[in-house]
């Protein structure tokens, strides 16, 4: 069977891509949200792999919890973004620099 390290490599790759997505992105906040989702997916991937590899159920269970939490989290995130849009009519990342120094 495929050694676990391959999977790990994939998941770390996803993770890094998501990180890159967060700090390379200069345009829209939503893209950041997406990359966050990607990050969590990579983590889930990890958990599933390990769970399978250790044939232990805890990993899979953990994934469910993560999924639900992420759902809530992104809901809140979107809400915040809406609030932001209300007060400043843009969700452009470059416009969010009022607080600095």
């Amino acid at each position, binding site marked *: 069977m495929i050694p676990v390290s391959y999977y790990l490599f994939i998941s770390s790759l996803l993770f890094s891509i998501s*990180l890159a997505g967060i700090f390379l992105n200069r345009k829209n906040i939503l893209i950041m949200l997406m990359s966050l989702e990607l990050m969590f997916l990579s983590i889930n991937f990890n958990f599933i792999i390990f769970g399978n590899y250790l044939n232990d159920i805890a990993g899979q269970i953990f994934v469910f919890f993560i999924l639900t939490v992420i759902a809530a989290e992104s809901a809140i995130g979107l809400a915040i973004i809406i609030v932001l849009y209300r007060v400043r009519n843009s969700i452009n990342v470059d416009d969010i620099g009022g607080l*600095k120094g």
Partner: protein
Amino acid sequence: MSLGISALIILLSPLVGALVLIFYKDKSEIKSSVIANISIFISFIFSLMLFIIFLFNSSTTYNYSNLVWFESNNLIFTFGLLVDSLSVIMSFIVTFISMFVHIYSIGYMKNDKSFNRFLIYTNFFTFSMLVIIFSNNFLQLFIGWELVGLSSYLLIGFWYKKPTAIYANMKAFLVNRVGDIGLLLGVILIFINISSLDYMRFFDSLPDLSNTSISLGSLSFDLLPIIALLLFTGAAAKSAQIPLHFWLPDSMEGPTPISALIHAATMVTAGIFMVARLSPLYDLSAYVLDIILFIGVLTAFLMGLVALVQTDIKRIIAYSTISQLGYMTVSLGASYYSFAIFHLLTHAFFKALLFLCAGSIILKCHHEQSIEKMGGLREVMPYTYYTYLVGALSLVGFPMFSGFFSKDLIIDLFKFHGDYLTYTILISGIFVTTIYTFKIFFKVFFGPNKLKIKKTDQIEHSDVIIIPLLGLAVPSIVIGFALFDSALFNDFFKSSITDSGRLETIYNDFVRSSLSFTLHSFLTFNFLALVSGLILSYILYYKNYQIPKNVTQKLESIIIYVKREYGFTHLSDVFFPRIFNNLSNMLWKKTDVAFLDNFIVNGIANRIRIFSSSLRLIQTGYIYHYAFTMIIGLLILLLFFYNF
């Protein structure tokens, strides 16, 4: 009545007087002067008594000390009294003159709005002078030393509105302080070597000390000469010897009675007194005596010359004082301390007399002090005229006058010892002295009455001014003769000064008796110099013969040079102040403010502030930068620990 008690009374009575003057409500002139004079009079009476006692039995000494200043383990600092022939005669001089000066000041300081303050100062001065005289240890000596300095400071600056006065008194104090450094260091050196400051302990341990040496850095010296030298710097400053003399002429800014009391008769002789007091030390400290002698000769002659070119009556007498002090120093240097004390005695009287005369003249001339402007006062003020004459003759050492006995003794000393260089210099000193003394005499009392001072039908001054003149004129004539055989050569100082042996020899081989000394003196160069000086000044200042022009032209530059005290004036009034000023300003502005404070202290603070305001820029406010920094941090940690 025990010596100690009476000495204590002599010492404290002026102090009590001063305190009463301070705290007594009624500050009226009458009351104040009564208080002051009584207090001085008491101590005069007692010191006169002591003096007489000692005349008959000079060997008794009384050394008493138990008032503890402070103690540390077994080291104890005490105050005490030492009553012996030396201190007695000094206290006699001081109180005598102080008394007459007090009386004189009643008239002289009349209607001065701080009359009371004046008397407080003079009383305080008398007290502190007596502290020196009666002290039996170095500490007390030093304390009195500083206190007389203080009172002279206060009295020179008595008229504190006069800028010249407050300049002069500061100068005087500082110069004396310079001397005091030497004195203090010497005292401490003595202390750390014998663990005590008592004169007697010191004299006893002198033999042991004579072969100890101290090391300063790498080089090492014999102890005693160093101590002697250090102490002498103190003496030189007080007694206005070159190069520390230049405060004395300026000190004439003070009221004239003060010039008489402090800057002629008493305080300035403290140095002479101290060296005489420490005669055992100076006997043992070889080359120091030569230095002292040298300085003395220099002062005696050069300052006489300066006196010659002065025009201010008080300054002339001041310079003459310095040169007379030079004579005393000379005899100290020749280790004939008793002669110095003897000259001190006579000089005190006639110089005080001269100053008081000057005072009365100045008073008459409405505080005009330049002798060039005066003239023809002979009829106007006969008392002053005669008393001045007495003082002058005594000063120049006219035979049978008291000055003669003391001064010619000192001069003949060198003939006796065959030191002819010094001898000639001193004799030319006499010549000079005579010229300037009679220059005043002729210019002031003869010639046209330039100031148009009327001869009033009543007496020239009130009695309080006349009496001291007469009171001082008498001893100026007689005291030298009176004490010559009976005291000086009668082992009066045997118990207090170590030169009695030498006195014996010089008396037997040279002086023999006062009369023979006098008669013999008419055939000496001293007298010749005196007479020639007299004639010269008669020609110059009475007949006013003009010396040929070209000679004066030639002399002009020299005169200027001499007027400037050979450059000392420049040194003291321009050079040192400037140096100090620049140095201190430089240290303050450059080092302290610019470097230490602004560069280091505030510099660091500012750098931190700048650094902070530049560091805050990393907080850009953009999410992706924040995320980026987080990831950088992550990577750093990962890399840092990956290759563990």
